């Protein structure tokens, strides 16, 4: 049976792992390559790295970091932040990343999804999406509007409509990140995650808000997510990947148990 994936997220600033709540009050968590290797050995199923200041600083993703990670982990990993064109995608993939994640860039220029999928294969292109609740149901039938630039800017796009468009353009996977839940450890935003998971045929990843294994169980069972991103709950040392998987296994969620 296909197992549900657990994906640690490493937010990167200047080649250090950082963690904040709603992108504020960031604290230093150490070296990304060391942390990646630790989570790999602890049995995570995949990893994701976001260079969270690259886009704002208009510089490309740290390719040397991508290379260094690729040397130590033997599982797939995605990178995002600082991807502004096909050339950036190509560099990240050739450095050893399995997938490249686009978010604001795709909203600005949706053709990047089509072009990326055509050039590198759909499985390489991940759409990150930051929906926020918007009760204007005439404009936003799903009840959620897509935002960009760390939830700071609204786009006028309906979240489910955008997910469907990205799927038609050939995206391989969609990460649904919730601002309301991000960093709060109060659980994923299940409602919009489920709406998107049920609307598309590509895998959907729940992101933002995980604080305990129960939250992951809810993302998989209630919100139909195929994978779930964890950050604070493991970075803090409160949980290990192994402990999360044990709890999910006990709840009947299929997970990869030996590695």
């Amino acid at each position, binding site marked *: 049976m296909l197992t549900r994936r657990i994906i640690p997220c490493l937010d990167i600033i200047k080649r250090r792992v950082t963690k904040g709540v709603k992108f504020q009050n960031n604290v230093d968590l150490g070296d990304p390559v060391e942390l990646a290797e630790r989570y790999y050995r602890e049995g995570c199923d995949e990893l994701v790295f976001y260079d969270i200041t690259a886009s704002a600083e208009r510089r490309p993703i740290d390719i040397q970091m991508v290379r260094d990670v690729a040397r130590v982990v033997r599982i797939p990993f995605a990178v995002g932040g600082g991807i502004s064109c096909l050339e950036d995608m190509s560099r990240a993939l050739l450095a050893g990343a399995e997938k490249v994640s686009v978010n604001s860039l795709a909203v600005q220029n949706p053709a990047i999804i089509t072009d990326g999928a055509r050039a590198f294969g759909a499985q390489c292109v991940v759409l990150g999406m930051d929906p926020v609740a918007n009760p204007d149901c005439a404009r936003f039938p799903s009840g959620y509007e897509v935002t960009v630039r760390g939830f700071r800017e609204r786009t006028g796009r309906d979240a489910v409509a955008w997910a469907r468009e990205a799927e038609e353009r050939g995206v391989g*996977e969609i990460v649904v990140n919730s601002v309301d839940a991000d960093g709060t450890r109060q659980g994923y935003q299940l409602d919009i995650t489920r709406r998107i998971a049920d609307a598309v*045929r590509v895998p959907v990843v729940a992101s933002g808000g995980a604080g305990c294994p129960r939250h992951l169980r809810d993302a998989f069972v209630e919100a139909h997510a195929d994978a779930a991103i964890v950050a604070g709950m493991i970075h803090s040392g409160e949980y290990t990947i192994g402990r999360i998987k044990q709890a999910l296994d006990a709840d009947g969620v299929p997970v990869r148990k030996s590695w």
Partner: protein
Amino acid sequence: METSFASAHRRENHMLAIVDYKAGNLTSVKLAFDALGQKSVITSDPAIIRAAARVVFPGVGAAGSAMRNLHELGLVPVLREVIASGRPFLGICVGTQILFDFSEEDGGTPCLGILPGRVALFRPGDPRDKVPHMGWNQVRICRPHPLLAGITDNSDFYFVHSYYPQPANPADTLGTTDYAGATFAAMVGRANLVATQFHVEKSGRVGLQLLENFATWDGRTNT
């Protein structure tokens, strides 16, 4: 019966060629062999592939463009020759799929026909089964093989694919996986040829074990 020349040559030649036919990113295959201390070279040069002690034939993307690229690069006869020579040969993902007769992908693509059978699209009855089949899934071992030494039955491997192999000859199937209502051949093998639908190079420690087994395999299955 092997000539003494060939056997001496084999002992001295440790070169492993990773066939580059513009079908996706080969970095992680190379890095996996680097991690094992096994020298490898990414190449589309027929001379280097012909001279290699063992050959890895990876590939991501679509069967149609993969076959087109192979023909354009003049690699089809080279691959046949390497396989016929008895040298260890490992197909991965799309590299595996195009070893069969035919793939449903790209409106139907005639493939290499080295293994009898077809490659079919997942057609899930349950909409919750997403296509592509992406993530870690178990491989049930059907029969022992030198490349599976040290690997537990039902180990998880990493998959990313929308089409799956259906060998015509059941004896070619080494391991199976269940997804979207289908039980498919996740690993096939015949003589010196082994091919996996999963990404062995991204399958963690278990995948490394399989690659290490390949790097030391002599291409024979009888013990």
